[in-house]
Every structure is written in structure tokens, then in C-alpha cells.
């Protein structure tokens, strides 16, 4: 699954550690999600969407739909 997390995080001027702290996950979790190697669960995807004040679809896109 592709995502715009790295761009969105950069726009907020947050490091991976900053985002991890806000999400209450480890920095390696943020890194794994950003690189598309780990797909977050629906609750974590909702937490991300709320944090960036966006919908999940605005952050994540299915490989099949792109």
C-alpha cells in the first residue's frame, strides 16, 4: 500500500520520532509504514488520519487503484 506519510510529515516539520511520539508507537513503526513495508491496522490508520486532519484515502492508496 502506498502512502504520503513522508511528505505530510515533512510539511509539519516533524521527524519520524516526533510522529511516533504523537501516535504512541515506535519510530521503527513509522519508518516501516512510510517505506510501505508495513501496512497499519485500521485503528492506526484512523489515528494517522485524525492527526493530519485528512481522510484515510488522502494518506493511503491501494496499489490496485493507482
Amino acid at each position: 500500500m502506498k502512502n504520503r506519510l513522508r511528505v505530510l510529515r515533512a510539511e509539519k516539520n516533524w521527524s519520524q520520532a516526533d510522529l511516533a511520539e504523537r501516535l504512541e508507537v515506535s519510530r521503527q513503526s513509522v519508518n516501516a509504514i512510510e517505506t510501505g513495508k508495513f501496512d497499519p491496522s485500521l485503528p492506526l490508520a484512523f489515528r494517522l488520519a485524525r492527526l493530519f486532519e485528512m481522510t484515510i484515502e488522502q494518506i493511503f492508496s491501494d496499489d490496485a487503484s493507482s
Partner: protein
Amino acid sequence: MWCTRSAAERVYLARTLVSMSIYVLVTAVVSWIFAHRHPQGALVYLLAVLPTLPIFAVIASLGKYLVEEKDEFVRTVLVQCSLWATAVVLAFATCLGSLQKYVPSLNKSAGLQNYWVFVVWFLAFAAAQPLVRRRYK
């Protein structure tokens, strides 16, 4: 940061450290009793099983950690490491069993004792962690 530990991981490490300390102590005491007091009857069974109880606690604490860890990525890594460790132990035990069956010089007495299974599992679990984590870097 890779070295940052969650609250659940700190509790897990503390539980494991306590259990392993008890294991070492109980094993030493039981070994001394068998060497010097030569227990008889049901006491032999009780004493022989006693050192395994802290190992059950280590297994339980790992299970509890998997439940208590809030970071789903860390949980995923741990589950994958557990599966790798289980695969290693199954392959190892199958291979060893076959060797013991067909190689006359490797009979049961020359083979590995069953209580080493957990040690092999735990070593494989630890060894799998950097390998599994590398896949997500």
C-alpha cells in the same frame, strides 16, 4: 530509535530476568539435592519438574508481552520471530530424531536432552529479531 523500549517490553524483560534468576537458583538447589541427599519416591518427580516451572513463567511472560505490547509493528515482528523460532526447533528436532533413528552412534543417550528444546527455541527467537527487523528497514 531502535533501542527505545516500551513499557510492556520493560515489564517483559523484568519478568524474564526474575524467572531466569529463579531458574538458575532452583536448578542449583535441585542438582545439589540429587547429588547429596539422593531423594526417593514421589519427591524425585517433584524435584525433577521444579526447575521447569520458571521456564513456564518465561513462556507465559512472552505471551503476556505479546498481548500487552501496544505497538502493532513490534507485535508483528515478535510473532514472525516466534514463527521462525518454532520452524527452527521443528526442523532441528525432526533432523535430530531422524539422525538418532538411522545413525547407530547417535542413539538417544548421545543426543540432545529434551529440555534443550526451549533453549534452542529462545536462541532462534533472539537470532531472528535482527533478521526480521531488517526486512522492514
